[in-house]
């Protein structure tokens, strides 16, 4: 039972894969693309993307470029330590999402920021 490599079958349909398999989707990506592990119900398949989806940030390394989930209180971020938009109930201050703002700042619910 030879898996189709980059053939057209359920796991390998989307482009960008360097290698792929029916069940796991992309196993590795073409150069410069990011590997994102996408959850679809009970399935989790590899998808190769030019940039990571909202809620994830890209990390480059010699072995592979991957999309990693932002911290839980963060809707979107540059990296693990620098958030750009907070989840509801949190307020952005100096790249961090906090439930309260420091002295001299007030919470803006519209922007979810300390202003």
């Amino acid at each position, binding site marked *: 039972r030879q898996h189709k490599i980059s053939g057209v079958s*359920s796991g390998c349909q989307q482009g960008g894969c360097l290698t792929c398999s029916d069940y*796991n989707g992309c*196993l590795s990506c073409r150069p410069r693309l990011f590997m994102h592990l996408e959850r679809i119900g*009970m399935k*989790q398949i*590899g998808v190769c993307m030019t940039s990571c989806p909202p809620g994830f940030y890209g990390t480059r390394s010699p072995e592979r470029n991957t999309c*990693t*989930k932002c911290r839980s209180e963060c809707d979107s971020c540059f990296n693990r330590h620098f958030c750009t938009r907070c989840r509801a109930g949190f307020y952005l201050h100096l790249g961090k999402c906090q439930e309260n703002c420091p002295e001299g700042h007030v919470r803006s619910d519209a922007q979810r920021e300390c202003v």
Partner: protein
Amino acid sequence: SERPALRALIKVSLLKHEPTGKPIILEGVFVGGSAGKAEGKLMQYHPLSLCNTSEDERQESDFITIVKLEHRVPRCLPLLDKARMALDKGAQAVIFDVSDDTNAAAELRETDSLPRPVVLVEADDAEELMGLVNKNEEANVVIEIKMEPKWPHYD
């Protein structure tokens, strides 16, 4: 002499079918000294998802992880660490489909320190399980130790 590996019974009930439907009975082999009972929703994890402990999705209910191992995916961690990581992520048990990764079985059989059941499946049993995953057929899985028939006594 080497202790024979305990076999596992894997009972699969499809959630979207009427409850009277008979479960699908498959078999596997326990590894890592972890034989025992476990139950949960079947959840596939990509082999690359067990590489680091980044902020990860949290499942609401009890779940059993299934991972199809591929020899073409470079091992980011030893398999024992992957199994432990899957259990740390909250899985009640882990099923590894080793059909396409023949070294996996040997790698996991050398240990017996895993806290919850880890089972290897291959060939038809693996194909059936992964077929359900591929069709996104939500399923509840019960893993038990398969009781081998005792040798009859000859007086």
